[in-house]
């Protein structure tokens, strides 16, 4: 089975976000970059599929040269080779999906897997748009995946608000992974060492022949307002509890 996993490099979720006035992107110097956590579930699932059914797992990433670090990490987890679409440009989900779909089309895959969303701009669009670009069936927010290689059919459980849905679809298809799908492995040290010998093909975005004009432009970016200082209730427990209930009801409006 030939599996493609789309991996995005994002700022570590513990990063303190900094912005200068007028910026339309966050300050990136000194940021620690990691693999988008949802993409880690995607990588893990692909590796498990490969371990069961054989074949190959190819990593596809888009971004500037720093992205190579995330690619190496995915290779260290056990992916076989990688394709890096290079660009320093600011792009939107549409352009990203077009570029990724183009690369995917060139080689042809049985399955394309990615995270349900990237935790940097939380758009949750790229996986779905890639499926549209390729005209493939898709299932998003997947928490359990069963692939029958013989019949080339997929049975997936996807998470809904307060419920879950089971869908069946044929291969090839696009899957987006949700937390709970699996527990991603740590790369073993021998695999980290082997990763540097694996092939990473670098492809300039401009060479793909896709329209790279973004549809969406960021006009303004601001940090959330600072939270006001906490209120500390004093006095008799009974009084304090009453006051707390009143505040939760009238001010916080949560009960």
């Amino acid at each position: 089975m030939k599996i493609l996993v789309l991996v995005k490099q994002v700022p570590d979720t513990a990063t303190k976000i900094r912005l200068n006035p007028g910026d339309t992107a966050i300050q990136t110097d000194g940021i620690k970059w990691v693999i988008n956590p949802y993409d880690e579930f995607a990588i893990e699932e692909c590796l498990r599929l490969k371990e069961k059914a054989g074949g190959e797992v190819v990593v596809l990433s888009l971004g500037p040269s720093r992205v190579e670090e995330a690619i190496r990490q995915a290779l260290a987890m056990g992916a076989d080779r990688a394709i890096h679409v290079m660009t320093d440009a600011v792009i939107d989900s549409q352009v990203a999906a077009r570029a990724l779909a183009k690369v995917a089309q060139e080689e042809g895959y049985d399955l394309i897997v990615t995270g349900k969303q990237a935790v940097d701009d939380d758009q949750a669009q790229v996986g779905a748009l890639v499926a549209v670009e390729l005209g493939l069936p898709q299932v998003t927010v997947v928490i359990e995946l069963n692939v029958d290689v013989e019949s080339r059919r997929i049975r997936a459980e996807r998470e809904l608000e307060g419920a879950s849905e089971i869908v069946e679809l044929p291969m090839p298809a696009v899957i987006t992974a949700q937390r709970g799908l699996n527990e991603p492995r740590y790369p073993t040290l021998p695999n980290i060492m082997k990763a540097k010998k694996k092939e990473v093909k670098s492809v300039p975005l401009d060479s793909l022949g896709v329209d790279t004009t973004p549809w969406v432009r960021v006009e303004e970016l601001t940090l959330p307002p600072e939270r006001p200082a906490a209120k500390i209730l004093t006095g008799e427990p009974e009084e304090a509890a009453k006051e707390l209930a009143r505040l939760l009801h009238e001010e916080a409006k949560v009960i």
Partner: protein
Amino acid sequence: MNFDLTPDEVMIRQTVRDFAENVVAPGAKDRDEKSEFSFDLMRQMGELGFFGIPFSEEWGGSGGTTVSYALAVEEISRIDASLGLGFAAHVSLGCSPLNLFGTDAQKHEYLTRAIAGTYLAAFGLTEPGAGSDAGGTATFAERTSDGWVISGEKCYITNAGHAGYIVATARTSREHRRISAFIVPEGTAGLSVRCAYNKLGMRSSETCEIHFDQVHVPADHLLGEEGKGLHQFLDILDGGRISIGALSVGVAQAALDASIDYATQRRQFGRTIGQFQAIQFKIADMAMEVEMARTMVLKAAWLKDQHRPYAKEAAMAKLFASEAAMRASNQAVQIYGGAGYMKDYPVERYLRDAKLLEIGEGTSEIQRLVIARQLGLEGDR
């Protein structure tokens, strides 16, 4: 000059850090309190390849650098120094002798499984009558027609309770100071191991006494050359010092992080205590010493990777880093005040753990002797 780590080294450090923070951290306090050694964690580290970092792929290692290994020991020790000690002792004292002096058959039989984490490896040098003065070894190995019969005892031996083999030193001559090293497999008749010390710190590392009551090992279980044991273990201890240095950096870094954390939260006299210059100076000194210690440890590791002499630098790094860890953890308790004296916070554990670092694998006094010898100063005879 280039102080950058390689991309591999960065990735190895990150992997070990994630493992330490997510898997090791949750039970660290509990294990310390109950003196509970976790072989399960050690086994997981073996499966992830942590034990094989500095060893060849031929034996299941990953052919990495001593620098990567030092970074890995630091990361584990920052979260749990006891586990860091088990890690460092297993690799530097248990596996290294086989790697350096073992035959291919010995490596195949023992080293591969120790690297994989199937079992641990222990190094038995210290005896009740032979600590700093390892030449005073009294354990004796008598040559027989087909091997050796070992009798004697060892004390304070790390990991021996879960060791698949123990590298034990013994005299092999009644007249001369000839010391040799032997591979003693677990379960050999006459070998008994008891791990019941009640320790000040490093409480969740396994420390054992070992008795050899006419333990027979075949001739091919001699490690390296007969009579060369003293030279061999000096080599091993040189490497081991890098790992104790790295362990010390981990403890010192943990003390520093905890100090900054508390100093920016605890309020007295209407401000955070981190706004008092007295506290700031403590933290600045701590940070400086962590920086120096780490640089010294990595420099010694780098020298070893370049196959250059590193004995002096390793002794200096171990000495400075262990004393820095002791100062840092002591100051961390001071910064926490009364809270630091309580088990609710980890800093008292750092202090108890740090003390071992000035004792194990050569006391601070012995490190100073080693450095002085390296500088050409003779001892009195």
